[in-house]
């Protein structure tokens, strides 16, 4: 039986019915990872023994007639920035190899396991999450399953590639400036960056605490919803979490979009991208009945504020290592962190005040709209090694520019679903951002499900990996 093209919902359904065991599902996933990971370089660690032991526990629970969770037996993997018991949490770095293996799972990983999912390994990423391409010189680049010469995006590039290649149906990533949404776009899969403070980030390595989020990737909206629901939970160990109670979305997917006020973002979000990403945003807008285009004032300033805050706050996490062992940093990361370490305090405080002012503009816009639509990336996946991006005749630094549409959104913590459109540029996919007001993830899932029902947005396993 072919398991790797099944969604998590389909796979756990078969496991619950006894058609497949959790052990068989894990063995199948481990086999695909062993044979195909050398091609995509999504995994940095595989934890077969632990996964098989957990699968046996799930099978035993089901045999006894016990409830094993909504994701019972579904293999998943986590970006190597999350703590996984027994594995060193390296965040894509060489420096963190000095750590002892994590003593316990981080909150997100533990939550997935409580829901019955089974962690099979840890995933490649940009060093310390500072990048949009996962061109990691320590562990090699994560390769795009749609075109192996191209980037899987970043910083959660391994998380994106693992799902698109059908190695797992669910993965976990983090998003500070776009690190879930960019890999969603490059790999053509679903991803959600929830409201800042919704999901606990405890048990892992932080990048920019005032901008860091966690979330799942998946190949269907129902799977994304199950992953998101599983990751919810109050956690006093994350000081930034604002607990709003358990608000599951899996039961809302059939509600449709009637009554939702939906518009497309123009201005900053209609400039500087290739035609294919603007066409994708237009097609999503049309499918959702969004006829108006609105402007988000100060979006460019918000994006710039996020860039400055990221540089400064990110550098602060690593000051000692930057002083004493800068040569051990990834070259693409090192000088960006060093530059951030030298930013004048007044610039950073001003950037924070711009963020606050911009947040007020965002609040005002969401009095009139429930969902706003924008491209996720300015282009589809770019060739690995490419440093510059040509857009409308202008040449801009690729690694600094790929978050041009995502940074203004995460800057103020808004929830976003990245909705994938296949073959948007030749055989390459792109994603479109569905953006809502804080704490309104529910409307995003309703819209995403509508796009999936209409057939416009989908996330099958990349053709070369079926």
């Amino acid at each position, binding site marked *: 039986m072919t398991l790797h093209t099944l969604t998590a919902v389909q796979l756990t359904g078969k496991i619950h019915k006894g058609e497949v065991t959790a052990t068989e599902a894990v063995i199948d996933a481990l086999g695909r990872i062993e044979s195909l990971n050398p091609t995509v370089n999504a995994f940095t660690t595989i934890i077969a023994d632990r996964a098989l032991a957990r699968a046996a526990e799930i099978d035993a629970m089901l045999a006894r007639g016990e409830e094993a969770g909504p994701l019972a037996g579904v293999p998943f993997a986590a970006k190597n920035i999350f703590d996984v018991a027994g594995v060193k949490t390296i965040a894509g770095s060489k420096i963190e190899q000095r750590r002892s293996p994590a003593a316990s799972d981080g909150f997100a990983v533990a939550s997935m396991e409580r829901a019955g999912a089974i962690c099979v390994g840890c995933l490649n990423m940009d060093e310390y999450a500072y990048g949009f391409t996962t061109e990691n010189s320590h562990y090699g680049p994560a390769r795009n399953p749609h075109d192996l010469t191209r980037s899987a995006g970043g910083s959660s590039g391994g998380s994106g590639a693992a799902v698109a290649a059908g190695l797992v149906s669910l993965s976990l990533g983090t998003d500070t400036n776009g690190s879930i949404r960019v890999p969603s776009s490059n790999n053509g899969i679903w991803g959600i960056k929830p409201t*800042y403070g919704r999901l606990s980030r405890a048990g892992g390595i932080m990048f920019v605490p005032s901008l860091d989020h966690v979330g799942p990737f998946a190949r269907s909206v129902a799977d994304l919803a199950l992953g998101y629901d599983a990751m919810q939970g109050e956690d006093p160990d994350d000081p930034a979490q604002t607990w709003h109670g358990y608000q599951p979305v899996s039961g809302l997917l059939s509600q449709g979009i009637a009554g939702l006020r939906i518009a497309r973002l123009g201005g900053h979000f209609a400039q500087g991208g290739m035609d294919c990403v603007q066409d994708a945003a237009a097609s999503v807008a049309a499918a959702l009945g969004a006829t108006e285009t609105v402007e988000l004032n100060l979006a460019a300033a918000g994006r710039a504020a996020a860039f*400055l805050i990221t540089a400064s706050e990110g550098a602060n996490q690593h000051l000692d290592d930057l002083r004493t062992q*800068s040569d051990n940093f990834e070259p693409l990361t090192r000088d960006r962190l060093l530059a951030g370490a030298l930013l004048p305090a007044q610039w950073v405080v001003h950037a924070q005040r711009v963020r606050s*002012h911009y947040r007020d503009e965002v609040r005002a816009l969401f009095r009139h709209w429930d969902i706003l639509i924008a491209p996720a990336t300015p282009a589809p996946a770019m060739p690995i090694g490419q440093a510059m991006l040509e857009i409308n005749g202008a040449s801009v630094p690729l690694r600094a520019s790929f978050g041009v549409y995502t940074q203004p959104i995460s800057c103020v913590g808004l929830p976003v679903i990245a909705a994938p459109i296949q073959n948007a540029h030749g055989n390459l996919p792109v994603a479109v951002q569905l953006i809502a007001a804080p704490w309104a993830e529910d409307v995003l899932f309703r819209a995403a499900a509508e796009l999936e029902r209409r057939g416009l947005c989908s996330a099958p396993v990349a053709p070369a990996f079926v």
Partner: protein
Amino acid sequence: MIDTEKFDPLAYVTAVAPAMGFDFPPDRLAELAEAFALVVRVGLPALTTEVPAESEPAPVFVA
């Protein structure tokens, strides 16, 4: 917040790096100045945005 005509990334980095505990040779300072200049270039729309007096720096996102 910044006078881009007068601002010299290499001079700034050369002056500030030692104060922050970084000891780099001149060629590395030049590379670092390039990285700093990129941060300034991308950050400029924020640095040139005027904010109302009541805009506080605290990152509060609650709607």
